[in-house]
């Protein structure tokens, strides 16, 4: 049995150890070395990369990325919550097809979905064209190659994750609680604020962490929709590897990104765990 199980797990374990754990471990180690003269790696120990990451220039890029990612999170929540709530209210047999329809775009090409927004938002694009034809504007609006376009692209790419996370939280609530609240005289808005919203906080946390992490590490959207003028964390890492050829510093930045992601996921897990504990204590 044990040898059988090893036979089953062995290849997968070997692959993921060799091509995931070791490379990621290497990234962590690389951050402590110096950049070689010709762009290679000089194996002399240093902590300079980490202090350099705190430099106002890079801290600024980090804060800017976080701000953009946070904006994408908030808008995804505002769009995603009512949508997930509505899906959870549908008859059981219709919920699954509706969710699959939400997730379908995720499985298709991200580059092309991003490109679609270039077509829609550019100066001669569909939206400007329509607005000019309607006489609403004379000059085309600057919709593309700015923060607005980046946020639109991120929300477009990741709102399905948000809806999925929220749905799995909302669909766990039975109608009984809301009915009890309404029967006790609370109006539906009050019921939502006092009952539904607090009970679905774990879903909100999970969806937000997902969208934030995917957004802050994104490289394609700022590159294509930001017009390459704006640097986000993902672009900075890209540049260190392919343009500046400072691999140790790029590795440090990647390591910090993963550390931030782990921190957020841990916080979210602790938060969900504690709520579950509270509910058990109450029951």
């Amino acid at each position, binding site marked *: 049995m044990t040898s059988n199980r090893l036979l089953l*797990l062995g290849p997968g*374990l070997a692959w993921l150890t060799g091509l995931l*754990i070791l490379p990621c471990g290497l*990234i962590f180690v690389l951050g402590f070395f110096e950049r070689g003269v010709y762009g290679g790696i000089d194996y002399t120990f240093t902590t300079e990369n980490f202090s350099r990451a705190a430099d106002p220039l890079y801290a600024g890029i980090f804060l800017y990325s976080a701000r953009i990612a946070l904006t994408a999170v908030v808008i995804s929540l505002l769009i995603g919550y009512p949508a997930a709530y509505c899906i959870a209210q549908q008859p059981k047999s219709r919920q699954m097809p509706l969710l699959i329809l939400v997730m379908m775009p995720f499985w298709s090409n991200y580059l092309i*979905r991003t490109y679609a927004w270039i077509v829609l938002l550019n100066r001669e694009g569909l939206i400007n064209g329509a607005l000019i034809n309607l006489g609403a504007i004379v000059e085309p609006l600057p919709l593309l190659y700015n923060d607005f376009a980046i946020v639109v692209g991120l929300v477009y790419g990741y709102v399905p994750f948000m809806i999925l996370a929220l749905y799995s939280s909302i669909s766990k609530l039975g109608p009984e609680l809301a009915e009890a609240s309404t*029967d006790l005289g609370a109006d*539906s808005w009050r019921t939502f604020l006092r009952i539904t919203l607090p009970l679905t906080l774990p879903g909100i946390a999970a969806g937000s962490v997902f969208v934030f992490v995917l957004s802050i*590490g994104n490289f394609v959207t700022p590159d294509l929709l930001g017009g390459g003028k704006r640097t986000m964390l*993902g672009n900075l890492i890209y540049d260190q590897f392919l343009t500046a050829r400072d691999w140790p510093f790029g590795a440090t930045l990647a390591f910090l990104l993963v550390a931030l992601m782990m921190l957020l996921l841990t916080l979210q897990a602790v938060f969900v765990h504690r709520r579950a504990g509270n509910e058990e204590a109450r029951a």
Partner: protein
Amino acid sequence: MSAAAQRADPVRHWLQAHLGLVYLFLYGPIIVLIVLSFNRAGLPTAWTGFSTEWYSKLAANAKIINAVENSLVVAFVSTAISTVIGTLLAIGMEARRPHPALEALVAAPMIIPDIVLAIALLSFFSLLKMTLGLHSIILAHAVFNIAFVCTVVRTRFKHFDRSIVEASIDLGAGAFTTFRRVTLPVIAPGVIAAALLAFTLSIDEFIIAYFTAGPGSSSTTFPMQIYAMIRFGVTPEINAVATIVMGVSFVLVFLSQRLNREVEA
């Protein structure tokens, strides 16, 4: 109850209208590209008549054909590898409650940002002084595909009655026969669904391929070619590419979902 339902009705209507708009938001841009790909002028400003000339232009573009061939090789090989390894991993993990560290290891490739995995693999390959090319993209794609296949196949075990495995062994069948005649038929739809998803993920993946393809254009994949075209500017050819890519992805995902649903019913 009916009074409450009545009161909630306008809210419900608003929610449904909102959901409709969300679907419009998700699919509108895709539909625009599809429509434009058949526009003779190819530009979003005016409809100048139906035409398939952008598709014939694509078929004559050697760079694109070459990139598609590369992508197909990468997707087929990485899917084959990860379907076998991921399925074995799933069976092994379902045989007994897996260690949390193993669970984390399988979840990691799905949540780690693409750019991080991309540079980690590039650094690792160059440390090993490996020449880069299609083979290194295949190695890289199998990392996240093994995780996806394993996760999809494991969901299949939720409906799996373990006692039939014991019954088979009690009746004298060996471990391999039991696997082939009992376990495999039950999980087969999940395995095929997982393979279809893995293929879709691989053929659409850009960043990891971009970093692990190495210099030179011989190992340019289809998404890398698309990226180059987009960077170059809005050309009507991309609309045709987009329509084909979207169509293929949607068909694969649709098939995969159908397969996965069948057993639950």
